[in-house]
Protein backbone atom coordinates (compact mmCIF):
# COMPACT_ATOMS: atom_id res chain seq x y z
CA UNK A 1 0.00 0.00 0.00
CA UNK A 2 2.67 2.46 1.01
CA UNK A 3 4.68 1.54 -2.05
CA UNK A 4 1.68 2.34 -4.24
CA UNK A 5 1.35 5.70 -2.52
CA UNK A 6 5.06 6.35 -2.92
CA UNK A 7 4.90 5.50 -6.58
CA UNK A 8 1.94 7.83 -6.93
CA UNK A 9 3.98 10.53 -5.25
CA UNK A 10 6.56 10.24 -7.96
CA UNK A 11 4.10 10.88 -10.76
CA UNK A 12 5.44 13.99 -12.43
CA UNK A 13 3.26 17.07 -12.06
CA UNK A 14 2.75 17.17 -15.81
CA UNK A 15 0.38 14.23 -15.62
CA UNK A 16 -1.63 15.94 -12.93
CA UNK A 17 -1.97 19.16 -14.88
CA UNK A 18 -2.83 17.26 -18.02
CA UNK A 19 -5.53 15.22 -16.34
CA UNK A 20 -6.99 18.24 -14.60
CA UNK A 21 -7.10 20.35 -17.73
CA UNK A 22 -8.55 17.54 -19.79
CA UNK A 23 -11.29 17.04 -17.23
CA UNK A 24 -11.93 20.75 -17.23
CA UNK A 25 -12.23 20.91 -21.01
CA UNK A 26 -14.54 17.88 -21.07
CA UNK A 27 -16.81 19.63 -18.69
CA UNK A 28 -16.57 23.07 -20.22
CA UNK A 29 -16.53 22.21 -23.95
CA UNK A 30 -17.66 18.62 -24.43
CA UNK A 31 -18.13 19.20 -28.15
CA UNK A 32 -14.39 19.84 -28.49
CA UNK A 33 -13.46 16.49 -27.04
CA UNK A 34 -13.12 14.74 -30.34
CA UNK A 35 -9.92 13.43 -31.89
CA UNK A 36 -9.97 15.88 -34.77
CA UNK A 37 -10.03 18.91 -32.56
CA UNK A 38 -7.54 17.52 -30.05
CA UNK A 39 -5.25 16.60 -32.93
CA UNK A 40 -5.13 20.21 -34.02
CA UNK A 41 -4.38 21.41 -30.53
CA UNK A 42 -1.56 18.95 -30.26
CA UNK A 43 -0.21 20.05 -33.60
CA UNK A 44 0.16 23.56 -32.21
CA UNK A 45 2.73 22.36 -29.71
CA UNK A 46 4.53 19.81 -31.87
CA UNK A 47 7.57 22.08 -32.38
CA UNK A 48 7.75 22.72 -28.64
CA UNK A 49 7.37 19.01 -28.07
CA UNK A 50 10.38 18.24 -30.20
CA UNK A 51 12.47 20.95 -28.55
CA UNK A 52 11.53 19.37 -25.23
CA UNK A 53 12.95 16.05 -26.41
CA UNK A 54 16.23 17.87 -26.96
CA UNK A 55 15.97 19.68 -23.67
CA UNK A 56 15.29 16.61 -21.58
CA UNK A 57 18.37 14.93 -22.99
CA UNK A 58 20.73 17.69 -21.95
CA UNK A 59 18.93 18.35 -18.68
CA UNK A 60 19.45 14.73 -17.75
CA UNK A 61 23.22 15.16 -17.99
CA UNK A 62 22.91 18.26 -15.84
CA UNK A 63 23.25 20.70 -18.71
CA UNK A 64 20.81 22.99 -20.52
CA UNK A 65 20.31 24.20 -24.07
CA UNK A 66 18.93 27.67 -24.63
CA UNK A 67 20.17 27.95 -28.22
CA UNK A 68 16.97 26.58 -29.75
CA UNK A 69 15.54 30.02 -30.51
CA UNK A 70 18.55 30.97 -32.61
CA UNK A 71 18.68 27.68 -34.50
CA UNK A 72 15.00 27.81 -35.34
CA UNK A 73 15.25 31.40 -36.48
CA UNK A 74 18.22 30.69 -38.72
CA UNK A 75 16.57 27.67 -40.31
CA UNK A 76 13.38 29.63 -40.79
CA UNK A 77 15.36 32.43 -42.42
CA UNK A 78 17.28 30.20 -44.78
CA UNK A 79 14.13 28.49 -45.94
CA UNK A 80 12.04 31.62 -46.29
CA UNK A 81 14.57 34.13 -47.54
CA UNK A 82 15.21 32.45 -50.81
CA UNK A 83 18.86 32.03 -50.02
CA UNK A 84 18.88 28.94 -52.21
CA UNK A 85 16.55 29.58 -55.11
CA UNK A 86 14.85 26.42 -56.35
CA UNK A 87 16.56 24.18 -53.82
CA UNK A 88 14.72 20.89 -53.35
CA UNK A 89 13.03 20.24 -50.03
CA UNK A 90 15.59 17.64 -49.09
CA UNK A 91 18.29 20.30 -49.22
CA UNK A 92 16.44 22.28 -46.58
CA UNK A 93 16.09 19.21 -44.45
CA UNK A 94 19.81 18.60 -44.74
CA UNK A 95 20.59 22.22 -43.91
CA UNK A 96 18.30 22.27 -40.90
CA UNK A 97 19.67 19.05 -39.49
CA UNK A 98 23.19 20.15 -40.34
CA UNK A 99 22.84 23.48 -38.55
CA UNK A 100 21.24 21.83 -35.54
CA UNK A 101 23.93 19.18 -35.34
CA UNK A 102 26.82 21.60 -35.71
CA UNK A 103 25.40 23.97 -33.11
CA UNK A 104 24.68 21.07 -30.77
CA UNK A 105 28.17 19.65 -31.19
CA UNK A 106 29.65 23.08 -30.55
CA UNK A 107 27.56 23.50 -27.40
CA UNK A 108 28.62 20.04 -26.30
CA UNK A 109 32.28 20.76 -26.95
CA UNK A 110 32.14 23.98 -24.96
CA UNK A 111 30.22 22.44 -22.10
CA UNK A 112 32.04 19.12 -21.85
CA UNK A 113 35.55 19.78 -23.00
CA UNK A 114 36.01 23.43 -22.16
CA UNK A 115 33.75 23.27 -19.09
CA UNK A 116 32.03 26.53 -19.87
CA UNK A 117 28.72 27.38 -18.22
CA UNK A 118 26.00 25.74 -20.31
CA UNK A 119 23.53 28.54 -19.69
CA UNK A 120 25.93 31.15 -20.99
CA UNK A 121 27.31 29.24 -23.97
CA UNK A 122 23.97 28.24 -25.34
CA UNK A 123 22.53 31.67 -24.68
CA UNK A 124 25.48 33.30 -26.41
CA UNK A 125 25.15 30.93 -29.35
CA UNK A 126 21.51 31.85 -29.63
CA UNK A 127 22.32 35.56 -29.50
CA UNK A 128 24.91 35.10 -32.23
CA UNK A 129 22.53 33.18 -34.47
CA UNK A 130 19.75 35.70 -33.97
CA UNK A 131 22.22 38.49 -34.68
CA UNK A 132 23.42 36.69 -37.78
CA UNK A 133 19.86 36.48 -39.09
CA UNK A 134 19.36 40.16 -38.32
CA UNK A 135 22.48 40.95 -40.26
CA UNK A 136 21.42 38.83 -43.22
CA UNK A 137 17.90 40.19 -43.18
CA UNK A 138 19.15 43.75 -43.38
CA UNK A 139 20.32 42.81 -46.86
CA UNK A 140 17.51 40.51 -47.74
CA UNK A 141 14.55 40.09 -45.40
CA UNK A 142 12.83 36.72 -45.25
CA UNK A 143 9.81 36.06 -47.41
CA UNK A 144 7.48 33.11 -47.73
CA UNK A 145 7.99 29.53 -46.74
CA UNK A 146 7.57 27.18 -49.71
CA UNK A 147 4.01 25.93 -50.06
CA UNK A 148 4.89 22.26 -49.96
CA UNK A 149 6.10 22.65 -46.39
CA UNK A 150 2.75 24.03 -45.37
CA UNK A 151 1.06 21.22 -47.25
CA UNK A 152 3.14 18.64 -45.41
CA UNK A 153 2.20 20.30 -42.16
CA UNK A 154 -1.48 19.97 -43.03
CA UNK A 155 -1.43 16.25 -43.87
CA UNK A 156 -3.48 14.06 -41.56
CA UNK A 157 -3.65 10.37 -40.92
CA UNK A 158 -7.23 9.95 -39.86
CA UNK A 159 -7.64 12.41 -37.04
CA UNK A 160 -3.89 12.58 -36.40
CA UNK A 161 -2.02 15.45 -38.02
CA UNK A 162 1.30 14.46 -39.54
CA UNK A 163 3.40 16.67 -37.21
CA UNK A 164 1.78 15.08 -34.16
CA UNK A 165 2.35 11.58 -35.45
CA UNK A 166 5.93 12.51 -36.24
CA UNK A 167 6.41 13.93 -32.76
CA UNK A 168 4.97 10.86 -31.06
CA UNK A 169 7.14 8.55 -33.15
CA UNK A 170 10.20 10.60 -32.35
CA UNK A 171 9.35 10.51 -28.65
CA UNK A 172 8.86 6.75 -28.74
CA UNK A 173 12.15 6.25 -30.50
CA UNK A 174 13.98 8.42 -28.00
CA UNK A 175 12.35 6.67 -25.06
CA UNK A 176 13.34 3.29 -26.46
CA UNK A 177 16.83 4.50 -27.25
CA UNK A 178 17.38 5.76 -23.72
CA UNK A 179 15.83 2.71 -22.09
CA UNK A 180 17.56 0.08 -24.09
CA UNK A 181 21.02 1.33 -24.86
CA UNK A 182 24.22 1.80 -22.97
CA UNK A 183 23.97 5.45 -23.97
CA UNK A 184 20.86 5.82 -21.81
CA UNK A 185 22.62 4.33 -18.79
CA UNK A 186 25.58 6.61 -19.27
CA UNK A 187 23.36 9.65 -19.40
CA UNK A 188 21.80 8.67 -16.10
CA UNK A 189 25.18 8.08 -14.54
CA UNK A 190 26.59 11.43 -15.67
CA UNK A 191 23.51 13.23 -14.49
CA UNK A 192 23.91 11.76 -11.05
CA UNK A 193 27.62 12.44 -10.61
CA UNK A 194 29.91 13.03 -13.53
CA UNK A 195 33.07 12.36 -11.54
CA UNK A 196 31.84 9.04 -10.26
CA UNK A 197 30.59 8.21 -13.75
CA UNK A 198 34.10 8.77 -15.05
CA UNK A 199 35.45 6.29 -12.49
CA UNK A 200 32.76 3.84 -13.45
CA UNK A 201 34.12 3.77 -16.98
CA UNK A 202 31.71 6.19 -18.61
CA UNK A 203 33.34 8.30 -21.32
CA UNK A 204 31.90 11.44 -19.76
CA UNK A 205 33.06 14.12 -22.16
CA UNK A 206 32.24 12.10 -25.22
CA UNK A 207 28.79 11.26 -23.91
CA UNK A 208 27.99 14.85 -23.01
CA UNK A 209 29.13 16.05 -26.42
CA UNK A 210 27.06 13.34 -28.04
CA UNK A 211 24.05 14.27 -25.93
CA UNK A 212 24.29 17.91 -26.93
CA UNK A 213 24.80 16.93 -30.54
CA UNK A 214 21.74 14.74 -30.49
CA UNK A 215 19.82 17.57 -28.86
CA UNK A 216 21.02 19.90 -31.61
CA UNK A 217 19.84 17.46 -34.24
CA UNK A 218 16.42 17.31 -32.59
CA UNK A 219 16.27 21.09 -32.48
CA UNK A 220 17.06 21.09 -36.19
CA UNK A 221 14.05 18.81 -36.66
CA UNK A 222 11.94 21.11 -34.50
CA UNK A 223 13.07 24.05 -36.62
CA UNK A 224 11.75 22.31 -39.73
CA UNK A 225 8.40 21.57 -38.13
CA UNK A 226 8.13 25.08 -36.74
CA UNK A 227 9.02 26.61 -40.11
CA UNK A 228 6.47 24.44 -41.85
CA UNK A 229 3.87 25.69 -39.42
CA UNK A 230 4.63 29.33 -40.23
CA UNK A 231 3.88 30.49 -43.72
CA UNK A 232 6.18 33.48 -43.39
CA UNK A 233 9.74 34.25 -42.47
CA UNK A 234 10.52 36.05 -39.26
CA UNK A 235 13.37 38.16 -37.94
CA UNK A 236 12.65 37.79 -34.29
CA UNK A 237 12.41 34.69 -32.21
CA UNK A 238 11.78 35.05 -28.53
CA UNK A 239 13.32 33.00 -25.80
CA UNK A 240 9.89 31.53 -25.19
CA UNK A 241 10.57 28.20 -26.75
CA UNK A 242 13.76 27.32 -24.85
CA UNK A 243 12.42 28.51 -21.50
CA UNK A 244 9.07 26.82 -22.01
CA UNK A 245 10.91 23.66 -22.96
CA UNK A 246 12.90 23.76 -19.74
CA UNK A 247 9.69 24.28 -17.79
CA UNK A 248 7.92 21.40 -19.54
CA UNK A 249 10.92 19.18 -18.92
CA UNK A 250 11.02 19.90 -15.21
CA UNK A 251 7.25 19.65 -14.87
CA UNK A 252 7.62 16.31 -16.57
CA UNK A 253 9.73 15.14 -13.68
CA UNK A 254 13.16 15.47 -15.26
CA UNK A 255 15.35 17.66 -13.12
CA UNK A 256 18.96 18.56 -13.75
CA UNK A 257 20.79 15.31 -13.38
CA UNK A 258 17.73 13.28 -12.52
CA UNK A 259 15.29 11.64 -14.83
CA UNK A 260 12.40 10.15 -12.91
CA UNK A 261 9.93 11.39 -15.49
CA UNK A 262 11.77 9.66 -18.31
CA UNK A 263 10.74 10.80 -21.74
CA UNK A 264 6.99 10.64 -21.36
CA UNK A 265 6.87 12.93 -18.36
CA UNK A 266 8.10 15.92 -20.36
CA UNK A 267 5.90 14.78 -23.24
CA UNK A 268 2.93 15.23 -20.98
CA UNK A 269 4.44 18.49 -19.82
CA UNK A 270 4.05 19.74 -23.37
CA UNK A 271 0.55 18.33 -23.64
CA UNK A 272 -0.43 20.18 -20.50
CA UNK A 273 0.93 23.40 -21.93
CA UNK A 274 -1.13 22.77 -25.07
CA UNK A 275 -4.31 22.33 -23.07
CA UNK A 276 -3.39 25.25 -20.83
CA UNK A 277 -3.06 27.64 -23.77
CA UNK A 278 -6.24 26.32 -25.35
CA UNK A 279 -8.24 26.61 -22.15
CA UNK A 280 -7.14 30.19 -21.68
CA UNK A 281 -8.09 31.11 -25.21
CA UNK A 282 -11.44 29.40 -25.01
CA UNK A 283 -12.27 31.07 -21.75
CA UNK A 284 -11.32 34.38 -23.26
CA UNK A 285 -8.98 35.13 -20.40
CA UNK A 286 -7.30 38.49 -20.88
CA UNK A 287 -3.54 38.69 -21.23
CA UNK A 288 -2.83 39.57 -17.57
CA UNK A 289 -5.26 36.93 -16.34
CA UNK A 290 -3.68 34.43 -18.65
CA UNK A 291 -0.23 35.08 -17.26
CA UNK A 292 -1.44 34.88 -13.69
CA UNK A 293 -3.41 31.68 -14.25
CA UNK A 294 -0.55 30.10 -16.14
CA UNK A 295 1.85 30.93 -13.32
CA UNK A 296 -0.48 29.71 -10.61
CA UNK A 297 -1.25 26.42 -12.34
CA UNK A 298 2.42 25.62 -12.94
CA UNK A 299 3.15 26.62 -9.38
CA UNK A 300 0.37 24.54 -7.89
CA UNK A 301 1.39 21.44 -9.82
CA UNK A 302 5.00 21.86 -8.80
CA UNK A 303 4.06 22.32 -5.15
CA UNK A 304 1.91 19.19 -5.07
CA UNK A 305 4.71 17.23 -6.65
CA UNK A 306 7.34 18.81 -4.44
CA UNK A 307 5.48 17.98 -1.26
CA UNK A 308 4.94 14.40 -2.30
CA UNK A 309 8.50 13.67 -3.34
CA UNK A 310 10.12 15.25 -0.36
Amino acid at each position, binding site marked *: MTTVLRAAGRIPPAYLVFAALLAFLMWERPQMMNPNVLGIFLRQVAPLGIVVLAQLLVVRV*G*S*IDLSGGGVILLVNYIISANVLPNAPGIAFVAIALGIGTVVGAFNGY*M*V*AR*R*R*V*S*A*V*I*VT*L*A*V*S*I*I*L*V*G*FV*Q*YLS*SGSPPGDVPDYMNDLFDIRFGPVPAPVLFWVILTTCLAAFLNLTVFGRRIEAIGD*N*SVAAHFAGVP*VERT*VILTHTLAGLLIGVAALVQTASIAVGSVREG*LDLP*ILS*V*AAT*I*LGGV*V*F*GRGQGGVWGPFFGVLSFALLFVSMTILGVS*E*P*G*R*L*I*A*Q*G*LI*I*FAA*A*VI*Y*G*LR*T*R
Partner: protein
Amino acid sequence: MLPLLVVIGIVTWLSIGTDEFARPGNLSNLLAQAMPLLIASIGQMFVIVVAGLDLSVGSVISFSTAILALDAPGYLTFPALFMLAALIGATNGIAVTRLNVHPIIATLAMQYVVLGVTRLIRPVSGGTVPEFVIASVQGSFLGVPMPVFWAITVLAIGWKVLHASRFGLHLFAIGGGMASGQTSAARNFGVPETRIIISAYVASSLFAALAGVFLAGRIVSGDPNVGMLFELNSITAVALGGTQLSGGVGSLQGTAIGAFLLALLSNGMNLANVSPFIQTVVKGGLLLAVVSFQRRRKMGL
Protein backbone atom coordinates in the same frame (compact mmCIF):
# COMPACT_ATOMS: atom_id res chain seq x y z
CA MET B 1 40.21 37.64 -14.22
CA LEU B 2 39.58 37.61 -17.92
CA PRO B 3 36.39 39.73 -17.94
CA LEU B 4 38.32 42.45 -16.15
CA LEU B 5 41.02 42.34 -18.81
CA VAL B 6 38.38 42.54 -21.50
CA VAL B 7 36.80 45.52 -19.78
CA ILE B 8 40.19 47.23 -19.58
CA GLY B 9 40.87 46.36 -23.20
CA ILE B 10 37.59 47.78 -24.42
CA VAL B 11 37.95 50.89 -22.29
CA THR B 12 41.45 51.53 -23.61
CA TRP B 13 40.41 50.93 -27.16
CA LEU B 14 37.38 53.21 -26.89
CA SER B 15 39.35 55.96 -25.16
CA ILE B 16 41.88 55.99 -27.95
CA GLY B 17 39.55 55.15 -30.83
CA THR B 18 36.71 57.56 -30.10
CA ASP B 19 36.69 61.14 -28.89
CA GLU B 20 33.50 60.75 -26.95
CA PHE B 21 34.11 57.76 -24.72
CA ALA B 22 36.37 59.20 -22.07
CA ARG B 23 34.37 62.37 -21.56
CA PRO B 24 32.94 62.67 -18.05
CA GLY B 25 29.46 63.02 -19.53
CA ASN B 26 29.71 59.69 -21.24
CA LEU B 27 31.27 57.99 -18.27
CA SER B 28 28.37 59.04 -16.12
CA ASN B 29 26.01 57.84 -18.89
CA LEU B 30 27.79 54.56 -18.83
CA LEU B 31 27.44 54.22 -15.09
CA ALA B 32 23.76 55.06 -15.29
CA GLN B 33 23.32 52.54 -18.10
CA ALA B 34 25.05 49.82 -16.12
CA MET B 35 23.32 50.51 -12.83
CA PRO B 36 19.99 48.65 -13.18
CA LEU B 37 21.75 45.52 -14.38
CA LEU B 38 24.38 45.82 -11.67
CA ILE B 39 21.74 46.07 -8.96
CA ALA B 40 19.69 43.20 -10.33
CA SER B 41 22.80 41.06 -10.77
CA ILE B 42 23.90 41.53 -7.18
CA GLY B 43 20.49 40.30 -6.12
CA GLN B 44 20.60 37.42 -8.55
CA MET B 45 23.98 36.45 -7.17
CA PHE B 46 22.56 35.79 -3.70
CA VAL B 47 20.29 33.17 -5.16
CA ILE B 48 22.88 31.69 -7.50
CA VAL B 49 25.34 31.25 -4.65
CA VAL B 50 22.85 28.91 -2.98
CA ALA B 51 22.53 27.01 -6.27
CA GLY B 52 19.22 28.63 -7.19
CA LEU B 53 18.10 30.90 -9.99
CA ASP B 54 15.64 33.76 -9.94
CA LEU B 55 13.72 34.14 -13.19
CA SER B 56 11.23 36.52 -11.64
CA VAL B 57 13.73 39.37 -11.47
CA GLY B 58 12.58 40.94 -14.74
CA SER B 59 8.93 40.95 -13.76
CA VAL B 60 9.72 42.37 -10.33
CA ILE B 61 11.59 45.22 -12.00
CA SER B 62 8.64 46.04 -14.23
CA PHE B 63 6.30 45.63 -11.29
CA SER B 64 8.34 48.04 -9.25
CA THR B 65 8.20 50.76 -11.92
CA ALA B 66 4.46 50.19 -12.23
CA ILE B 67 3.90 50.59 -8.49
CA LEU B 68 6.02 53.73 -8.35
CA ALA B 69 4.06 55.23 -11.23
CA LEU B 70 0.73 54.62 -9.52
CA ASP B 71 -1.35 57.65 -8.83
CA ALA B 72 -0.40 57.67 -5.16
CA PRO B 73 2.05 59.60 -3.02
CA GLY B 74 5.63 58.37 -3.03
CA TYR B 75 5.74 57.90 0.72
CA LEU B 76 3.12 55.19 0.26
CA THR B 77 4.22 53.54 -2.96
CA PHE B 78 7.90 53.45 -2.10
CA PRO B 79 7.69 51.33 1.07
CA ALA B 80 4.78 49.33 -0.31
CA LEU B 81 6.87 48.37 -3.28
CA PHE B 82 9.64 46.94 -1.16
CA MET B 83 7.21 45.12 1.06
CA LEU B 84 5.57 43.51 -1.93
CA ALA B 85 8.95 42.62 -3.39
CA ALA B 86 9.94 40.98 -0.13
CA LEU B 87 6.71 39.04 -0.21
CA ILE B 88 7.43 37.85 -3.75
CA GLY B 89 10.92 36.79 -2.75
CA ALA B 90 9.68 35.04 0.37
CA THR B 91 7.14 33.12 -1.70
CA ASN B 92 9.88 32.02 -4.08
CA GLY B 93 12.07 31.02 -1.18
CA ILE B 94 9.38 29.10 0.65
CA ALA B 95 8.43 27.30 -2.54
CA VAL B 96 12.03 26.26 -3.10
CA THR B 97 12.78 25.23 0.46
CA ARG B 98 9.67 24.15 2.27
CA LEU B 99 7.61 23.10 -0.74
CA ASN B 100 10.49 21.47 -2.55
CA VAL B 101 9.86 23.15 -5.92
CA HIS B 102 12.70 23.49 -8.41
CA PRO B 103 13.95 27.10 -8.45
CA ILE B 104 13.47 27.45 -12.20
CA ILE B 105 9.85 26.37 -11.96
CA ALA B 106 9.06 28.37 -8.85
CA THR B 107 10.52 31.60 -10.15
CA LEU B 108 9.23 31.10 -13.69
CA ALA B 109 5.71 30.71 -12.33
CA MET B 110 6.33 33.81 -10.25
CA GLN B 111 7.56 35.64 -13.33
CA TYR B 112 4.22 34.97 -15.02
CA VAL B 113 2.14 35.92 -12.02
CA VAL B 114 3.99 39.15 -11.30
CA LEU B 115 3.99 40.14 -14.97
CA GLY B 116 0.25 39.49 -15.10
CA VAL B 117 -0.36 41.67 -12.07
CA THR B 118 1.90 44.35 -13.52
CA ARG B 119 -0.09 44.34 -16.76
CA LEU B 120 -3.27 44.71 -14.73
CA ILE B 121 -2.11 47.79 -12.90
CA ARG B 122 -0.27 49.26 -15.86
CA PRO B 123 -1.28 47.87 -19.25
CA VAL B 124 0.93 50.35 -21.11
CA SER B 125 3.76 52.54 -20.03
CA GLY B 126 2.95 55.86 -18.44
CA GLY B 127 2.13 57.43 -15.11
CA THR B 128 4.29 59.74 -13.11
CA VAL B 129 7.14 58.73 -10.91
CA PRO B 130 7.64 60.54 -7.59
CA GLU B 131 9.90 63.55 -7.97
CA PHE B 132 12.38 62.33 -5.35
CA VAL B 133 12.96 59.14 -7.29
CA ILE B 134 13.71 61.07 -10.47
CA ALA B 135 15.98 63.44 -8.61
CA SER B 136 17.83 60.61 -6.93
CA VAL B 137 18.63 59.09 -10.29
CA GLN B 138 19.05 61.99 -12.65
CA GLY B 139 20.29 64.65 -10.30
CA SER B 140 23.70 65.23 -8.87
CA PHE B 141 25.06 65.97 -5.44
CA LEU B 142 28.10 68.16 -4.87
CA GLY B 143 28.63 68.06 -8.61
CA VAL B 144 28.84 64.27 -8.63
CA PRO B 145 26.08 62.53 -10.63
CA MET B 146 23.75 60.46 -8.47
CA PRO B 147 24.48 57.09 -10.15
CA VAL B 148 27.93 57.27 -8.58
CA PHE B 149 26.32 57.25 -5.14
CA TRP B 150 24.01 54.44 -6.18
CA ALA B 151 26.99 52.40 -7.30
CA ILE B 152 28.90 52.99 -4.07
CA THR B 153 25.87 52.20 -1.96
CA VAL B 154 24.79 48.96 -3.64
CA LEU B 155 28.34 47.69 -3.90
CA ALA B 156 28.93 48.47 -0.23
CA ILE B 157 25.74 46.73 0.81
CA GLY B 158 26.48 43.80 -1.47
CA TRP B 159 29.99 43.50 -0.11
CA LYS B 160 28.95 43.68 3.50
CA VAL B 161 26.21 41.11 3.13
CA LEU B 162 27.99 38.65 0.86
CA HIS B 163 31.56 38.78 1.98
CA ALA B 164 31.63 40.25 5.46
CA SER B 165 28.72 38.77 7.34
CA ARG B 166 27.68 35.45 8.78
CA PHE B 167 24.73 35.47 6.42
CA GLY B 168 27.09 35.65 3.46
CA LEU B 169 29.30 32.85 4.77
CA HIS B 170 26.22 30.73 5.34
CA LEU B 171 25.09 31.39 1.78
CA PHE B 172 28.40 30.11 0.45
CA ALA B 173 28.30 27.16 2.85
CA ILE B 174 24.86 26.09 1.72
CA GLY B 175 25.80 26.53 -1.93
CA GLY B 176 29.00 24.56 -1.46
CA GLY B 177 27.05 21.67 -0.02
CA MET B 178 24.58 21.75 -2.89
CA ALA B 179 27.35 21.90 -5.47
CA SER B 180 28.91 18.75 -4.09
CA GLY B 181 25.61 16.97 -3.85
CA GLN B 182 25.45 16.92 -0.05
CA THR B 183 22.30 18.94 0.20
CA SER B 184 22.19 18.98 3.97
CA ALA B 185 25.88 19.50 4.68
CA ALA B 186 25.50 23.07 5.89
CA ARG B 187 22.47 22.11 7.93
CA ASN B 188 24.55 19.56 9.81
CA PHE B 189 26.83 22.40 10.85
CA GLY B 190 23.86 24.03 12.47
CA VAL B 191 23.33 26.58 9.72
CA PRO B 192 19.64 27.49 9.52
CA GLU B 193 19.45 26.48 5.89
CA THR B 194 15.81 27.11 5.12
CA ARG B 195 15.77 30.56 6.62
CA ILE B 196 18.89 31.60 4.79
CA ILE B 197 17.76 30.35 1.41
CA ILE B 198 14.46 32.16 1.83
CA SER B 199 16.38 35.31 2.74
CA ALA B 200 18.45 34.94 -0.42
CA TYR B 201 15.32 34.97 -2.56
CA VAL B 202 13.99 37.92 -0.59
CA ALA B 203 17.26 39.74 -1.18
CA SER B 204 17.09 39.01 -4.88
CA SER B 205 13.60 40.46 -5.11
CA LEU B 206 14.53 43.50 -3.04
CA PHE B 207 17.51 44.23 -5.27
CA ALA B 208 15.29 43.77 -8.32
CA ALA B 209 12.83 46.24 -6.83
CA LEU B 210 15.69 48.65 -6.28
CA ALA B 211 16.77 48.23 -9.88
CA GLY B 212 13.17 49.02 -10.78
CA VAL B 213 13.33 52.20 -8.74
CA PHE B 214 16.45 53.29 -10.57
CA LEU B 215 14.89 52.49 -13.94
CA ALA B 216 11.70 54.32 -13.03
CA GLY B 217 13.81 57.35 -12.25
CA ARG B 218 15.51 57.02 -15.59
CA ILE B 219 12.48 56.45 -17.81
CA VAL B 220 10.26 58.64 -15.58
CA SER B 221 7.32 56.31 -16.00
CA GLY B 222 6.00 52.92 -15.12
CA ASP B 223 6.33 50.27 -17.76
CA PRO B 224 5.11 46.67 -17.84
CA ASN B 225 7.91 45.55 -20.16
CA VAL B 226 10.93 47.44 -18.94
CA GLY B 227 12.30 44.51 -16.97
CA MET B 228 12.11 42.10 -19.88
CA LEU B 229 15.18 39.88 -20.22
CA PHE B 230 16.69 41.25 -17.02
CA GLU B 231 16.51 37.78 -15.53
CA LEU B 232 18.68 36.33 -18.27
CA ASN B 233 21.00 39.33 -18.46
CA SER B 234 21.55 39.28 -14.73
CA ILE B 235 22.31 35.56 -14.78
CA THR B 236 24.71 36.22 -17.64
CA ALA B 237 26.45 39.01 -15.74
CA VAL B 238 26.80 36.86 -12.64
CA ALA B 239 28.16 33.91 -14.59
CA LEU B 240 30.51 36.15 -16.58
CA GLY B 241 31.88 37.31 -13.27
CA GLY B 242 32.98 33.79 -12.45
CA THR B 243 30.16 32.77 -10.13
CA GLN B 244 29.32 29.12 -10.59
CA LEU B 245 25.70 28.36 -11.26
CA SER B 246 26.08 25.12 -9.33
CA GLY B 247 26.49 27.18 -6.18
CA GLY B 248 29.03 28.04 -3.54
CA VAL B 249 31.61 29.90 -5.60
CA GLY B 250 31.60 33.52 -6.65
CA SER B 251 32.57 37.06 -5.84
CA LEU B 252 30.87 40.42 -5.80
CA GLN B 253 33.64 42.10 -7.75
CA GLY B 254 33.22 39.47 -10.45
CA THR B 255 29.53 40.21 -10.70
CA ALA B 256 30.17 43.94 -10.84
CA ILE B 257 32.65 43.44 -13.65
CA GLY B 258 30.25 41.15 -15.47
CA ALA B 259 27.44 43.67 -15.32
CA PHE B 260 29.76 46.46 -16.27
CA LEU B 261 31.08 44.51 -19.23
CA LEU B 262 27.60 43.98 -20.61
CA ALA B 263 26.76 47.68 -20.29
CA LEU B 264 30.08 48.65 -21.77
CA LEU B 265 29.41 46.49 -24.80
CA SER B 266 26.25 48.44 -25.69
CA ASN B 267 27.75 51.83 -24.97
CA GLY B 268 30.97 50.98 -26.76
CA MET B 269 29.26 49.67 -29.85
CA ASN B 270 27.02 52.72 -30.00
CA LEU B 271 29.99 55.05 -29.77
CA ALA B 272 32.08 53.02 -32.16
CA ASN B 273 29.17 53.29 -34.54
CA VAL B 274 28.62 49.59 -34.99
CA SER B 275 25.58 48.99 -37.19
CA PRO B 276 22.52 47.81 -35.27
CA PHE B 277 22.36 44.86 -37.61
CA ILE B 278 25.60 43.43 -36.35
CA GLN B 279 25.57 44.66 -32.75
CA THR B 280 23.79 41.52 -31.68
CA VAL B 281 26.36 39.26 -33.33
CA VAL B 282 29.23 41.19 -31.79
CA LYS B 283 27.63 41.05 -28.36
CA GLY B 284 27.02 37.31 -28.56
CA GLY B 285 30.49 36.69 -29.96
CA LEU B 286 32.25 38.63 -27.24
CA LEU B 287 30.18 36.93 -24.59
CA LEU B 288 31.14 33.57 -25.98
CA ALA B 289 34.79 34.53 -26.29
CA VAL B 290 35.03 35.76 -22.72
CA VAL B 291 33.19 32.86 -21.21
CA SER B 292 35.02 30.24 -23.22
CA PHE B 293 38.25 31.17 -21.51
CA GLN B 294 36.72 30.75 -18.10
CA ARG B 295 37.34 27.06 -17.64
CA ARG B 296 35.77 25.56 -14.61
CA ARG B 297 36.38 22.34 -12.81
CA LYS B 298 32.87 21.02 -13.05
CA MET B 299 30.72 20.81 -16.12
CA GLY B 300 27.08 21.75 -16.25
CA LEU B 301 24.93 24.81 -15.80
